[in-house]
């Protein structure tokens, strides 16, 4: 059993070796730690926004999506959406929103964990963080498609506005509204975190692969 754990954790770096190549071993640890921190910070920032432009809204209407809540002109957008029979935005992604904070905290813990894993398992721990930004957008897209495609047929404008899926990033059009969707600071941080994880893993492999390849624990 301890052999399995050992093989997961990989070789330890001796104090001499660390002193000789401080940069080599510190860099991946630092990068992964920074990535974990950025991910944690992103919890407090909006991830995505959509702004609706129409002549009678000179400042536009904007909804900001945080991991666990919506902010901005949600009431007004819901009010408008009722004309086309779209459900209130607050009803979307309830499960995701309730779990998201815990999930992202877990992701950053896993990345921190990868610092201490000096083998290929480290990549596995970091993998969710690498996929997370794309996962967020895919989930968002699925909800938007679900809401846009399932309009209440009894709504006042149901004959005028056909079911639609607004672009999750970029420009779309619904009625007199132009929709502009773009990532916000949270998603940008999460993406930067993923990129840093990628770079961190590369240096991680560069640092520990030689050790791992020559490493023969007595119990192996």
């Amino acid at each position, binding site marked *: 059993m301890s052999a399995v754990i050992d093989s997961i954790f990989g070789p330890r770096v001796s104090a001499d070796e660390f002193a000789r190549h401080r940069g080599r071993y510190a860099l991946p640890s630092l990068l992964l730690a920074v990535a974990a921190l950025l991910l944690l910070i992103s919890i407090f920032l909006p991830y995505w926004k959509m702004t609706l432009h129409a002549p009678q809204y000179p400042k536009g209407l904007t909804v900001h999506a945080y991991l666990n809540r919506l902010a901005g*002109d949600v*009431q*007004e957008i819901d*009010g408008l959406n009722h*004309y086309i029979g779209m459900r209130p935005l607050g009803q979307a992604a309830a499960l995701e929103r309730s779990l998201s904070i815990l999930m992202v905290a877990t992701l950053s813990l896993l990345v921190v964990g990868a610092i201490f894993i000096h083998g290929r398992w480290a990549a596995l721990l970091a993998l969710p963080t690498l996929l997370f930004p794309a996962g967020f957008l895919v989930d968002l897209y699925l909800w938007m498609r679900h809401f846009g495609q399932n309009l209440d047929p009894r709504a*006042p404008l149901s004959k005028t506005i056909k079911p639609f899926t607004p672009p999750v990033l970029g420009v779309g059009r619904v009625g007199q509204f132009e929709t502009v969707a773009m990532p916000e600071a949270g998603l940008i941080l999460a993406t930067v975190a993923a990129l840093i994880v990628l770079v961190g893993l590369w240096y991680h492999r560069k640092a520990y692969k030689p050790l791992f390849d020559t490493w023969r624990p007595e119990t192996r």
Partner: protein
Amino acid sequence: MGNRSRVVMALAGLVLANCGGGGEGKPGAAVSGSSDVQKIAADRGLTPDDVAAALKTYTPSGRIDDYIMFASGGHSGHVFVIGLPSMRILRSIGVFTPESWQGWGYGSGTEVMAAADPKGKENRWGDTHHPALSETGGDYDGQFVFINDKVNARIAVIDLRDWETKQILKNPLSLSDHGGSCVTPNTEWVIEGGQYASPLGFGYAPIASYKESYRGMVTFWHFDRTSGRILPEKSFAMELPPYWQDLFDAGKKVSEGWVFGNSINTELATGGVESGNPPFEAGVSQHDNDYLHVIDLKRAAEVFQAGKAKKINGLAVLSLATSIEERLLFFVPEPKSPHGVDVSPDGQYIVVSGKLDPHVTIYDFTKIQQAIASNKSEPDAYGVPILDFDAVVEAQVEVGLGPLHTQFDDKGYAYTSLFLDTMVARWTLGGPGGMLNPEPDWTLVGRVPVQYNIGHIAAAEGDTVSPDGKYLVAINKWSIDRFFPTGPLLPQNLQLVDIGETGDTMKVLYDMPMGIGEPHYAQIIKADKLKPWTIYPEIGWDPRTQAVDPKAPKVGEERIVRSGKDVEIFSTVVRSHFNPEHVELRKGDRVKWHLTNVERTQDATHGFALPMYNINLSLEPGETSTVEFVADQDGTFPFYCSEFCSALHLEMMGYLLVQP
């Protein structure tokens, strides 16, 4: 010549702008742009002065005015809000008179108006005269505006967060006021002076007993800024001789704590032209002098707080005897039947306009204080000490015929309206203010004709401790030929006057017809001092209490609650439906209908129009309103949203069904 060159500069500016806009700077394009502007001016018969005036006032779509003017509506009973320099009417505010667009008197505000009905008798119009913006340190603070009603002696408080009338008080002493409203420099007191004398409390007394039984008055209403209300129990009045007090102004800076008023009828004329007596117009103009009233308000308040007032109709009144004994009231001779009493920005000078005398008479506050201290005075018929005119007068400036009202600017000029000459006169102040302009002190600098028969004037923040200059509005009573004749009843003419430069340079920039009332006086405040709400702060807001109504209907809790003949309806209102849409009642039900506009978007106002029951509400975003009525008519009543709210506005309706 100076003006012409300014126009040329302006036109050159347009040409340059055209050039830049074209992006290519083709000389041909510049010439054609220039000739276009000149062609437009030529085609429309506009002089260079006209073009300059247009450039100074034209406010393109989306540009917001620099100044906001609150004008009384005269006998329309409203207050009008006008932007400067565009002279666009922004809105009216219902005060003493019902106004159906705002729902004022048709479901909201009814109890505010009813609370000020004289002796409970319904009066649903007012003669609004003098708006007064609240002040802090003698400067407008943009929080409240007060306005008096001349016809029934009432005073109203408008909250400038939501621009709604919150309180109207009936003065229990008189049915006639004029010298109000004005405020003390920190708005502790709102001043309301009476006009036509009558027995205090307006009971019957034969006109033959005028001297003994009839009295004038001035009331000092204590204003509580926190609650936004006048507190009648902390307010008091002063009994005055029946001299027809006219206008009042509060002292400021050096004269803070003092109040000045003028009077017309020291003759004690009682009219009776039908019996061969001189009519009032002649009777009140017999003496060479009337009296400027000088009141020590700070001391008067102490005397009132010491319990030396007696109550008349519930309002504390300091008797004339008490005022004389406590040395609260002094008189100073002023040219007969004057008009206007205005304190200079530094508080040093009190300007009284002659009306029947071509001068403005300027009194010095320090000299008044010295005269009071010297104890050299003659008592008048009622025992009030009269100070020596020569001892207190600072200057007299001959400004023209029919001087009425004075305002001030930032360059040490005073402006006086001239009714008979139908002009505005500009003249110089003395003292430190006089050094701000090149002309000698106490001299007439220039005059500008206005059309026609000017009454009050309002300069930008022109009665504060720091006037802005720039603009002055002449409130002209007659327009005669200025506009298309709108039948025999013509609009008034409010003229914007440019007072931006020193010397004899005043220019009329713009004529604004006012065909929905007769503004009497106005005050002009810098727009950025106003901080109005754009929507009510929270859903369920009751403007009467400026707090959330605990009974306000909420989304998902709409209901109809019946208890015997009492029915309470809780409705929400949103684009584009009422909830509930069906309301079933039985004839004779007593109905309390609460409605909340649950919108949070600026301008998403809804109406609630109920036929036959004389109800229309304006429900602004977040607002809750409650209408009460007895369902005394059976039938089918389609109610609807009277404010065009959305593409499905027409569908925003419901049925009130009242069973026989």
